[in-house]
């Protein structure tokens, strides 16, 4: 009986190859220790088997022993000091929730983008096809980013405080994930677009509202800068055709001019929402931020309507022409049943001015009084 100690024979070659494969997966520190210990174990197993059989083992029999010990990748991984998973059981529900919410926003924005394309004259089939393609790549990007973030967080010695320091009043934000297939069918059949508690923002805590807003702003800003594609083609390549008139060049020029202001607004929105989430009771600061952001929205929408190349292309030159166009569109639409598409676009833009104007008024009241009624139910 031999100990198979000669480097030239078959079994030793197999063992060396096996241990080299294990060693290649191990960090340099401790590598020799691990392989030496494994080698001793393998040799002890071989000797015990040889003693039982009363003869040397064949290569195949040695291979069976090595296979019993396990694949080198698996064996080496067990010796690793870090987690043996990408995202562990503690973090996984957070990862899953983030991906679910991100996908819901992705689907909503993709549908919105497809509708805009169809309205602006693009073929329905092409818009839907591009929507699906964009949705797929967007979903893959989203899952990749979420997984990378989860991988990094999993390997921190201290987990983020949101995992342990949560409050019941902030749990409203997690109801977003209720919008599953069953909930969506129920919403469609009942004419409700979301669970009741989601529609009533008053029932969500200020922190939940701020975080939801931050997530939405982040996704939309990422889409605007081109980091995430929802609709296949970037906006600069869209064909915008309204009622047979090609507005593509005007739309592209408008996007180019307003690109950075929108990026700035998006970044400010995210920072402001995070501030709101951190200090939900800072009523006056929140009101002030709301006023500044609403002024930004008001200015951008006003510019879009009155000054931008798109506004000019739609035949708008001043406030008077807006009023006249809106009046004509409504009168003609109601009178004849024919609604001018370009008129409807002007109508939508004009109506969009009302939201920031209303927000400024409400926030002014909160700034002066220092009272936010939405906080009363979340003491």
């Amino acid at each position: 009986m031999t100990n198979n100690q000669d480097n030239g024979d078959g079994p030793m070659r197999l063992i060396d190859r096996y241990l080299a494969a294990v060693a290649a997966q191990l960090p340099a520190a401790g590598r020799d220790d691990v392989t030496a210990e494994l080698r001793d174990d393998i040799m002890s197993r071989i000797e015990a088997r040889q003693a039982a059989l009363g003869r040397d083992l064949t290569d195949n029999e040695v291979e069976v022993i090595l296979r019993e010990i396990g694949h080198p990748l698996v064996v080496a991984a067990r010796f690793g000091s870090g987690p043996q998973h990408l995202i562990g059981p503690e973090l996984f529900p957070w990862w899953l929730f983030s991906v679910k919410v991100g996908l819901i926003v992705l689907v909503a924005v993709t549908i919105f983008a497809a509708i805009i394309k169809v309205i602006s004259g693009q073929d329905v089939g092409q818009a839907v096809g591009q929507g699906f393609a964009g949705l797929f790549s967007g979903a893959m990007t989203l899952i990749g980013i979420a997984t990378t973030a989860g991988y990094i967080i999993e390997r921190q010695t201290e987990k983020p405080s949101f995992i342990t320091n949560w409050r019941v009043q902030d749990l409203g934000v997690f109801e977003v994930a209720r919008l599953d297939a069953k909930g969506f069918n129920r919403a469609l059949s009942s004419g409700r677009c979301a669970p009741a508690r989601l529609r009533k923002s008053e029932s969500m805590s200020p922190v939940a509202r701020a975080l939801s807003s931050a997530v939405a702003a982040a996704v939309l800003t990422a889409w605007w800068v081109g980091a995430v594609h929802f609709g296949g083609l970037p906006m600069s390549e869209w064909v915008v055709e309204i009622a047979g008139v090609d507005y593509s060049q005007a739309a592209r020029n408008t996007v180019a001019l307003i690109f950075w202001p929108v990026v700035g607004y998006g970044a400010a929105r995210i920072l402001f929402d995070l501030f709101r989430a951190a200090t939900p009771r800072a009523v006056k600061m929140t009101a002030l931020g709301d006023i500044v952001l609403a002024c930004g929205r008001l200015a951008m929408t006003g510019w879009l309507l009155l000054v931008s190349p798109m506004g000019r292309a739609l035949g708008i030159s001043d406030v008077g022409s807006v009023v006249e166009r809106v009046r004509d569109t409504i009168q003609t639409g109601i009178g004849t049943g024919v609604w001018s598409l370009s008129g409807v676009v002007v109508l939508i833009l004009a109506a969009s001015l009302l939201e920031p104007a209303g927000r400024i008024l409400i926030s002014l009241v909160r700034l002066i009084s220092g009272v936010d009624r939405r906080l009363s139910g979340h003491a």
Partner: protein
Amino acid sequence: MGETETYEALRLELRRGSLVLATLARLRTEQYGYSLRMGLAEDGIEMEESTLYPLLRRLESQGLLTSEWREEDKRRKRFYRLSPEGEAVLKRLHDEWRRISASLDRVLG
């Protein structure tokens, strides 16, 4: 998942926690990896190399074991034994094991 697979998954889960206790108990006397694995197998506790050796390293890094390399039978072997801290932890774990066992006996009837 069939009943057999379910049982097997639950059995492994049940057994996992007991491996540390068995390993610490066996290392009240000095052992090297292979002899420890064989000793545990004789007592009915089978453990793969890829489970045992990382466990030994973890227990050593936690200060519950000490180890040293020595030559025996013309081969270098790493010998492990329980540290004083390991003995104290083993005693506490043994007490806890008896308490759990007694509780389960009452629950299971």
